[in-house]
């Protein structure tokens, strides 16, 4: 495929393979958004790699016309790390489910984030194990009934945002499968960030966990239950754009206030600073129905990426001392037998 030609459309990023998710699955919408994003970026299919673990979400690479590697359950971040260490020029995307990323693969996600390998990690969070037919997952809310928790789950779920920030992630964002305007914008931000970008995408599993996110994604409630974050802008939401977040007086917690009520003006509202890790943590913790779900780029504070440092270290060593094999073998004490 010719990179120079600006003619690539979203369709050019689709492979010839038939997409095999359940009809109505949120994964379709995400696939579409990703293809659209790549088209907008005119990404080079030859230099783009999708790497996934196992799960419904992980089928993703087969449907892309780029390079793709469908690997094993939970391990995609580790494999992607090896790819970047070998060829840092490649643009590497990881696609993972909530079980893949936060259960069996939690350790690898943790370490990819703290190392800051230049990857885009897309976490399709449907709060369920789709591929294995509907068991509860580590992000399922307490009380989730599933074949393995017939009486409702009892363990506390993990929050991807809190996990990522705790691991030292330098980029964390959120979007929703069906938000076809918002999602590509977020994906572009993730791609632009050099380092590990974790994007949590709320994805509806129509078969095993249908409507899990209706509480904040349904048309009727969305505006009041979501806040779309923008760096440098006040955190305002609501159908009438009349609600905002601010720090409660004397406490380190966020509260919802109404503009115009009790003398509250826009000047009182928290301004989103995506480089503020503490703020990101507070925003990530907001939960409906009392609080809006924070979507957008919660945190972005770039630092040197891991593979850059590794590559530079090797290059510097080679430059200061370009060695050959004979020299290596002869290093240290040798003696001649005649």
């Amino acid at each position, binding site marked *: 495929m010719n990179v120079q030609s600006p003619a690539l459309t979203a369709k050019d990023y689709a492979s010839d393979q038939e997409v095999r998710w359940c009809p109505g699955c949120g994964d379709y919408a995400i696939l579409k958004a990703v293809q659209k994003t790549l088209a907008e970026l005119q990404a080079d299919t030859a230099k783009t790699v999708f790497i996934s673990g196992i799960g419904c979400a992980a089928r993703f690479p087969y449907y892309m016309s780029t390079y793709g590697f469908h690997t094993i359950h939970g391990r995609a971040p580790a494999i992607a*790390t090896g790819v970047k260490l070998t060829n840092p020029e490649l643009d590497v995307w990881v696609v993972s489910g909530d079980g893949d990323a936060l259960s069996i693969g939690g350790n690898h996600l943790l370490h990819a984030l703290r190392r800051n390998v230049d990857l885009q990690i897309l976490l399709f969070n449907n709060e369920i194990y789709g591929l294995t037919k509907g068991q509860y997952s580590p992000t399922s809310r307490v009380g989730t009934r599933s074949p393995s928790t017939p009486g409702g789950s009892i363990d506390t779920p993990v929050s991807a945002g809190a996990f990522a920030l705790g691991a030292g992630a330098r980029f964390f964002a959120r979007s929703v499968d069906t938000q076809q305007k918002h999602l590509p914008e977020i994906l572009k931000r993730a791609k632009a960030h050099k380092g590990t970008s974790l994007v949590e995408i709320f994805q509806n599993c129509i078969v095993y966990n249908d409507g899990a996110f209706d509480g904040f994604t349904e048309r009727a409630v969305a505006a009041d239950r979501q806040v779309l974050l923008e760096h440098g802008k006040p955190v305002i939401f609501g159908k009438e754009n009349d609600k905002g977040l601010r720090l409660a007086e004397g406490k380190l917690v966020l509260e919802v206030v109404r503009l115009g009520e009790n003398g509250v003006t826009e000047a009182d509202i928290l301004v989103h600073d995506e480089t503020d890790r503490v703020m990101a943590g507070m925003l990530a913790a907001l939960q409906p129905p009392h609080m809006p779900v924070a979507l957008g780029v919660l945190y972005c504070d770039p630092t040197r990426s891991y593979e850059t440092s590794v590559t530079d270290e090797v290059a510097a060593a*080679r430059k200061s001392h370009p060695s050959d094999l004979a020299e*290596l073998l002869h290093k240290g004490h040798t*003696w001649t037998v005649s």
Partner: protein
Amino acid sequence: MEGSTALVADPSGRRVLDSAVVRFAGDSGDGMQLTGSQFTLSTALAGNDLATFPDFPAEIRAPVGTTFGVSAFQINFGARVIKTSGDELDVLVAMNPAALKVNLVDVKPHGLLILDSGAFNERNFTKAGYESDPRSDGSLKDYRVFEVDMSQMTQDALKDCGLTKKESLRCKNMWALGLIYWMFGRDRQATVDWLNEKFRRRTEIAHANIAALNAGHAFGETAEVGEDLAAFSVPPAEIAPGLYRNVTGAEALSWGLVAGAKGAELKLVFCSYPITPASSVLHALADLKDYGVVTFQAEDEIAAVCAAIGASYAGGVGVTSSSGPGVALKMEAVGLAISAELPLVIVNSQRAGPSTGMPTKTEQSDLYQSVFGRNGDAPLVVLAARSPADCFDVAIEAVRIATKYMTPVILLSDGYIANAAEPWHLPEADSLPRFPVAFETDPEGFHPFKRDPETLSRSWAVPGTPGLEHRIGGIEKASDSGNISYDPANHQLMTDLRRNKVLGVAKDVPPQAFEAGGADDKLVVVGWGSTYGPISRAVDNLRSEGLPVAHLHLRHIWPLPQNLEALLRGFDKILVPEMNDGQLVTLLRGEYLVPAESLSKVTGKPFKISEIEAAIRARLED
């Protein structure tokens, strides 16, 4: 048996020995490893052949003076070819009672014990668990004992050096080394140079150590040490001319991987997670950034193998390294590399198992794990190194096979090989094998599972190549397109292809040859890995007595060499010594239905030559 033999005087009056086994033993803080490696260096420079083995305590900082804090270093050197670090000790240098207690069992009858009497006191007897003074209660009556207060002598020698008592005492290993140098007529210069270099920023320490070394040497020369501590000479061995160095298995393996990647003309990406006794390979390679080596200490063994797979996928040589427990964790991912048909080298420095087992003790018990230990029909190539220096060649071979056949290769080393050292005749760097990899670049008729009809290897198209975008994974794929396929006949075909590809590697390796003897002999000993030393010495010894015994030593564990079956069928008896409960023997019986018999040893220690000799004799007699 290895060890001292003929005793004739040389012109200088020294008694001439054919070979000798010396072990330095002391507390882990006594510097026994340094002492041993310095003695090794001067012995190599004197032209002897040699083999060494360090024995570290399992504890990092065991209490001083206790038996579990004993560290030892053994060297066997001779005027003839040396194949093992020696069955029994001719000389044991024991720096304290605990060192004596732990190591006495290995000293041969009438062997020489050199003791630092300064450390033989009540406190140390108690710490070592001696109820009485072993020197006076008769426990040493079968040995020759030479006592000298090394602690005091060292302090006396260093009294003008301006060091504290504690600092002076730390030099007593050099005093002991000086004495042993005198015993065997060794030159001190290499050690003097080494000390000056090592302590170039603390010259007073360098001088003190050199003073201790010289004092120990002078003591031997001037003191009335009598018959017990006679001066010996071990003449140079007949060694092929050339340039030599000492290498441990871990070093040779690391350098072999570098040479292999160079042969393939690819970047070496080495991904590992620390584990005894495999970490030394990680350490060695981490220090080779100037050779373009990328090392990655992953979060666990699974991540390590996965990163290595990612490296190969991206067009590098992905290598991972561990020991048995870590390799167990890697196996799911190894299956992925088998299914996706990607090159991968997995180094296993085996240790005693199961589970944590005995991390610092050697064993060969991961052969089953290597050949069979994965889910599904998951064939790969298994190679085994026989000695420290052999690791270099086997590592190159592993990279060659992995990249040529697009297959994982398990390279088996073990704790003994990793730590042991031997002189290595350095190859010419220019003469090393070259096998440049040609990546697929042609979009015409491309699909990722297109195969070379000869090798059955699939084409290797790396991300970044325009026009070859494709998807691979661990799901079964159609043989003719690489697309996902659950077709029953296709799975049969792909299983056959994966099996035949790996079996086909046997056509690409030299036929199995005898190490000693041949088809006319009655009994053949079949070995693999680090049992090479004791087996070959045992077989040589018995052959020189005229016994009809031959030796085959396998580098290729899977696939087995093509001519092996025919070779084995020629023998009445087949004996397979292994440091496991009988694994290669089962493989040979299963493959060839031959009456191979196991000689098993799982004590965490290598075979003694005498043990193998006895087993062969017993079979030849009945």
